[in-house]
Structures are given as C-alpha cells and as structure tokens.
C-alpha cells in the first residue's frame, strides 16, 4: 500500500511508451494446435551451452523422450515433441540468433505416444528432487530469455531469494498467451509459484499484471482468495512498455533498483514469467518434459489464435491453422512487434521461449538527422541518453559509449519507437556494444 502511494506521488511518470495494444486474441480460448507431420528440434533452445545429441538418424522416439542432454550447468536438455522416426540431423539457421545450429527432424507416426510420466504430489518432494525434476524436464524461461530455470532455482548460499515476482505484465502489443494462461489456468500458475517459493524459501510473492488485463486480475484474485495465501499478492502495474522487463518490474513492484553490473538475485529477487511457472508445475507434479508452450499467432492472419504449440513446429503450419496470411503481410516475426526477430522463411521452426508468431506489414520510413528532441531520453526505462549512442556510433567514437553506460541498455526499443526522425536507435546501440566489446578484447 505504501509502495502504491509512493508510485502515485512520483513526480516523474513511469518512463516507457504506449504503443497501440492490438490484443486481437485477448478473448480467444487457448486451443491445442493439431500436431504437425514433422518437427525440427534445435539443440540450442535456451541460453547457455547447446545440448548434446543422443539420437541418430533412423531412431524411433516417443513424445517426451530425451533426445539431447545438457552437458554443463547452464544448459538444458531437449525432448522429442512428437513420436516417430528421426529422419534427419542437419544444420539449420537458428530462428532467434541466426547462427547455424544442429537440429533433429522427427517425422510423426501420427500416434503421439508419450513416454511414461510419473505423477507425484509436489509437497512430498524435497528441494533437491524438485530442482532435479525441473532440470530433467528442460524447463527454461518462457518469457523470451530462455534462461535455464533450474539455475535460477539454485542461488548461491550467501544470496538468498526473499521475493518472487511472477511476471504477467505481457506489455508487448499483440501477445496474449500469458493473459489467457492466467485466465484459463490460474491453478497451474499459482501452484508453480508455490513450488518456486518453497524451493527458495521465499517469504513474499507478487503476481504482477498490467492494469489493462482486468479479466486476468479478477480471475487470479478470486483464485487466491479461495486458497487463502497471505504471502502471495497481486500487483497491478501501469500499462506501459516495457513493464515486463525484469529490471523495470523490480523497480515498479519493490521500489528498488538492481545495482549496475548485478543481477536480480543479488537483491534477493527472482522474476519468473507466468508461463514458466506453469511449466515448472507440469514438470514437478506431472513429470512432464517441456514439449509445448502457448503461443499467440496473430497480426495479418485470417483467424488469430492462441495455440498450444509443440516446439519444432514450422511457422507455416501454425499460420495455415489460422487461415493463412492476409494480403500485405510481408514480415514474419517470432515474438512481439517490439522485440520480435524477423524470420527468413515461413518454414522457421519455433523454439522454447517463442510466445508469439506475428505476421505484419513492413514500415518504410526514411531515417533523418537527430533533432535532439530528447524523446528517447524521456521514454528510456533505464534513464539513459540513447541519442548519445547514435552520435558516438556515427562518429566512430566507440570508447565514449561507456561514459553513457551503454551496457545498462537492454535494447527494449522504446527509444526507436518514440523517435520522430525514425532513427533505428537499437541498431546503433547494437553496433556500439559490439565495437566496444571488440576494443576491449583488443586491449
């Protein structure tokens, strides 16, 4: 309450931008997508080391079978998302990073035979057993980061986590996957949150939702009242992009900042996307490996939908299920319009942490000279001066970028959205960070 009053009294508005929401599928019930006839599974669907392949061409696999194992601590295993035959092992372009990545193509036998899963009561499991089950299931952060979840559940002993924030902000336009999940499955989200709290011995938890999702807020509120959980609160965020970035979320909810160069665990906070929490529940209570995720297929498609999609499915299969591309659509994005990665082909396979497939129309606007309007400074959620990066990158004075804390930038794109001169500031920042890195390695 005190925090909310402080928020209200803050003289400066919350920085950020307010793009049109276009939540076309906010009222569309999540459906399970009919299974594709083949999937292409990448060995790197998470941040960290790629998984090591365990199958060879011609092997018969079942849904949920381990096909690649994690070799290091920061890595995650990969499971078959269809039952059938391993048809091909090849190198494909990673849809998010653009790097060549080993991939396994599995052709479906049409049966979707699952490996045996063990259903247990999570309350009977020890901390170590819970973490092991999360790790074995290949759970990674599904909000976009893809960071292996078991790593986040094992903070260093001297840095205990006291607060868990369930991130249900979903501040990007178009995407409704998390909102629908909170409306339709609050049980799994809250159970996952309770598991995380128990593992970390966290005292407080907040489920953070933007104010423009009243249905999700009401549904979770009702559910929490039934359960009577005194330490789980709902925190209503202002609707504003990029509210869902972990650093911004921590400042909004707790009123604290993560010091520069530190991570959220250093201030005793863990931020976990609501979709990940549901996946944690599935992996711990049902023993179910992470093979699917709710995705919003939207934009310039005939029938936008929220679909439960198996990883490795080609975007074209999902777009066909949504009635195909409307005339004019010439860009395919994995992710929302602010952070999404443009795809080379409709055949791109979805990977873990892709929560949206957006077909959109390209905008062609001419880049002009900066007029120093300072809108980029006003909207920057990290309170940086993005136009300085533009100036210094254009002058090739890369060493000066650090004086303006370029490493603090998380490339949310709010500055580029707000720029009246259409300067692609994120691209300049990208170049600047790369060049600065090069200079450092040269020294």
């Amino acid at each position, binding site marked *: 309450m005190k925090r909310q009053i402080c928020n209200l009294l803050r003289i400066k508005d919350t920085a950020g931008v307010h793009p049109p929401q276009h939540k076309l599928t906010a009222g569309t019930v999540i459906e399970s997508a009919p299974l594709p006839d083949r999937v292409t599974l990448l060995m790197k669907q998470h941040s960290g080391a790629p998984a090591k392949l365990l199958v060879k061409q011609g092997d018969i696999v079942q849904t949920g079978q381990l096909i690649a194992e994690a070799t290091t601590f920061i890595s995650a295993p990969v499971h078959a998302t269809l039952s059938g035959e391993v048809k091909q092992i090849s190198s494909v372009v990673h849809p998010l990073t653009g790097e060549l990545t080993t991939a396994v193509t599995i052709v479906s036998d049409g049966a979707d035979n699952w490996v045996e899963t063990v259903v247990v009561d999570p309350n009977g499991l020890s901390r170590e057993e819970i973490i092991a089950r999360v790790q074995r299931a290949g759970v990674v952060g599904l909000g976009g980061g893809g960071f292996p979840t078991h790593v986040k559940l094992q903070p260093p002993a001297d840095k205990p986590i006291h607060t868990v924030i369930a991130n249900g902000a979903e501040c990007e336009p178009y995407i409704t996957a998390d909102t629908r999940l909170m409306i339709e499955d609050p049980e799994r989200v809250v159970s996952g949150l309770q598991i995380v709290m128990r593992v970390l011995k966290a005292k407080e938890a907040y489920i953070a939702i933007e104010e423009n999702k009243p249905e999700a807020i009401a549904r979770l509120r009702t559910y929490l009242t039934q359960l009577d959980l005194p330490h789980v609160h709902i925190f209503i965020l202002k609707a504003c992009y990029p509210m869902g970035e972990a650093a911004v979320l921590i400042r909004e909810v707790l009123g604290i*900042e993560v010091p520069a160069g530190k991570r959220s665990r250093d201030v005793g906070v863990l931020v976990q996307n609501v979709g990940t929490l549901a996946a944690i529940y599935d992996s711990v209570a049902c023993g179910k490996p992470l093979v699917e995720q709710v995705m919003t297929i939207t934009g310039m498609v005939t029938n936008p939908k929220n679909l439960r999609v198996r990883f490795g499915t080609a975007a074209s299969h999902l777009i066909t299920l949504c009635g195909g591309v409307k005339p004019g659509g*010439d860009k395919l994005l994995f992710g929302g*319009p602010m952070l999404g990665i443009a795809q080379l082909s409709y055949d791109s396979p979805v990977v873990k942490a892709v929560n949206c497939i957006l077909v959109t129309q390209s905008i062609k606007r001419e880049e002009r000279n900066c007029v120093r309007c300072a809108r980029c400074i006003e909207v920057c959620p*990290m309170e940086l001066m993005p136009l300085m990066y533009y100036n210094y990158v254009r002058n090739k004075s890369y060493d000066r970028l650090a004086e303006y804390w370029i490493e603090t930038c998380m490339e949310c794109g709010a500055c580029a959205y707000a720029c009246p*001169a259409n300067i692609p500031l994120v691209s300049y920042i990208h170049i600047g960070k790369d060049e600065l890195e090069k200079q450092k390695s040269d020294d």
Partner: protein
Amino acid sequence: MKSESPSNHQPPLLLSPAPHLRGRTSIERDMYIVTGALLLPVAGAVYFFGLYVLLMLGTALISAVFSEYICKMMRRRVFHMDGSAVVTAILFTLTLPPRTPLWIVVIGAIFAIAIGKEVFGGLGQNIFNPALAGRAVVGVSFPVHFTEYIAPTTSWLGDGVTTATPLAVGVTPHWDLFIGNVAGSVGETSALLILISGIILIATGLIKWQVPLFFIGTVAGFSFILGQNPLFHILAGGLMLGAFFMVTDYVTTPLTTNGRIIFVLGAGILVVLIRLFAHMPEGVAFSILLMNAVTPLIDRYIRPRPYGYRGRKIGVIR
C-alpha cells in the same frame, strides 16, 4: 526442410531489426503543430498592425524555404519540406517591428536559414536558434529600422503612428500589455495569444511546462529583487514569445529537463540584466542566444542518473 507454404501467393519475407513498430511521431508533425500554434499570434499581429504583417510573413516564408532548398542543393543533401524553415520564418517575422522594410526581412530570413542553420549541418546540428540569429543580425546591422515601432493601427496598410515600445518608455497599463494593444514587435505584444498557443504546445506534449514557467519565474523574481515591477517585465517585450517558442526549441537547448531549467535560469537573469543595464531596451533575443552557446556545456554536467546507479556519483563528461 519441406516447404509448406501457407498460401500460394506469398510475397518474399522482409528482414529488419526490432522494433517493428514505430510511434506516430515525425519531425513534420512536430513542426506543423508549432506552426498551427503560431497562427494565433500571427492573427493577433494582423489585427493589431494591419495586413502589411502578412506581406512580411510571406516574404520571410518564401526566402527561408527557398534558401534552405538552395543550401541543400549546394551541400548535395536531400531537401525535406519538414516545416522547420516555416517555423523559423514565422518566429523571425514575429520578432520584427511592424513596418520593417521587406528587403530587411529577406536578408534576415536568408541569414537565419543559411548561416543560422545550414552551415552547421542543417536541422538538429545548429548551435544558435536560427530565428533569433536572423533577428540579431538584422537588428545590429540596420539599427535605424528597429527603433520605429508603431502603435496598433486601424489603417490596415498605412504607415501608422511611430512611437516607442513600452520597454523604452516604461509605463503602459498591464491590461493593454496582456491583450497586446501596445506598440512593439509584430508578434510579441499579445501575452494572451502567446499563452494560448503555449498551452497548445504543452497539451500536445511538444514542450515541458517547467521550461516556460521557470523562465518567466526567473525574470519576475530577478526583476523584483532589483526593485522593478515584475508583472511589467513579464508582459512587455518578447518574453512570452521567447518563453514558449524560443527557450523550448529542441535543437538549441539542453537535452534533459533539469538542464533546460538551468538554461532558462541563466537566460532569465540575462534578460533582466540586459533590459536594465545594457544599451538596448530588449534583451530576450540576446540572452537566449548567449545561453544557446552554453548548451553543450550544460549537457556535459546535467545527465540523468541511469537505472542501477542510485546513490552513486555519476561524474561529468570531460
């Protein structure tokens, strides 16, 4: 991989970096909002000083836009009708005496655009406010024509009665100053009309309310300390026009709101000092131009404290 095209007629996919959504802002939009807001003082000027004002405005507009076009051609750059030359031309005209000869208008407008803006690299690169640079140059070069201010007239194209401005004389009823029914430069006499267009700019988010408020506040406070009538100093001369349209210029003022407040504190003090102690009745133009020169320095000292640096010193750019 098998190609499974979602429909038969697929256009090729385009690649581009994020973000894929852009706001509905543009330089043109900003400039034409300012132009729209300026129409009110322009209308007031025509009402008070006659149709000759429109002749001056038209001359300034044509000279400014045409000289920008020539400069862009000479620099082999693309000419954009982005409205910045229009804003400069209108602002420049509003600072001139009501019967300025047209040849002076032409010289001032060309100087404002060519020397005030384009030699620095065009919009966004200029150090000094182009309109004020043009005004300062013609004011210093042809001083005779800048002492002849006429009283508001009913004869729309006629010569009018030459008189001194309130700042030169020092006594005029406040109500006349507020409405604009006094002798003075074309667009600066009516505080009321400028206030209304200023509110339009604040409401559309183009300028921050702090900037004009602190500017006017500084002038009022400092003139009061020096034993002057603060209300007179606010309403007389070009202060209101400067407060809403000159010290709020993006290009030539600091980047942060705090930096802009420091800018207007300095400009406000200079206005009063020039008005009281220099050999000129009016000081708004020169005080802003002087502070324009200090803008890069202010930007080095005043920077926002970024996320994650709470409680830490952030230092100064050398």
